[in-house]
């Protein structure tokens, strides 16, 4: 069971109160994007064993989207943060580095 802290209403919500929104920070190129860029936006996903960034929605709660950083192997949650960002904030990256030195995810480290 995954328990995520909703950064908007401050509730420690369990998985059944949330709905998953897939991978975080997927960038859409354009206008005039190449076929490869549009393909990657639609289909290319990370599927890592370890550190991962995801979008979640507090569906049965305040209804807000937020981001979560967690480990897909141990289900450890490193932190949750606002949806209004295009990359993981520094405090989240630092929290991950403290527990998983040398981690990478896409071009983030």
């Amino acid at each position, binding site marked *: 069971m995954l328990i995520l802290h909703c950064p908007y*209403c401050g509730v420690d919500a369990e998985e059944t*109160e949330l709905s998953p929104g897939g991978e975080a920070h997927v960038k859409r190129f354009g206008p005039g994007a190449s076929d490869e860029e549009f393909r990657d936006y639609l289909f290319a996903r990370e599927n890592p064993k370890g550190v991962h960034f995801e979008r979640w929605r507090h569906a049965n709660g*305040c209804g807000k989207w937020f981001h979560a950083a967690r480990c897909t192997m141990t289900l450890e949650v490193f932190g949750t943060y606002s949806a209004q960002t295009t990359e993981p904030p520094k405090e989240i990256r630092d929290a991950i580095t403290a527990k998983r030195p040398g981690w990478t995810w896409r071009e983030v480290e």
Partner: protein
Amino acid sequence: MSEPITAPITALGGARHDGLARIEEVGLHGMITLRGDLASKAVKAAVMAATGAKLPGQRGVVRGKSGTAIWMSPDELLLCPYAEVDATLGKVTAALGTAHALAVDVSDARAMLTVSGPAAREVLAKLCPVDFAPGAFGPGMVRRTRMAQVPAAIWMEQDESFRVICFRSVARYVFDLLGVAAQPGSGVGVY
């Protein structure tokens, strides 16, 4: 032929169930959804105009002279006026003025129930993934959550009875759920 409906009808006809806890339908109750920037003066004025209450803080419920203001999300409040909803909505709209905000009468979209009695906390805790322990949840707090398969908002009145809001279309489902959870002899004795 069915008769034309001349007066509003409650979702459950004032249903009531006695078990470990008493579950009652509150009946017709005014509810106004207010969305906007909660830090703005216009929203504060609108809350004051509708309920006579101050703006509730995060997950807070504030009771005023003419109604209750409930925090629903960082940009949404639910105002429950005691009196005429139309008139209150007019006051809210007037108080909002030209501010970028939305106020809508949602009374007929929702149903409201009360769950009271010493085992009320336990009855609700059977259905929701929420810590309803006396130290963790008390009067003046609201929690939007999942009640079995449907969303619900739950808050506690000063007398430690719970108010539950659900969508009107699932009112019967929620009432029956609570009834089963409050079945005599099914007490867990956690709280």
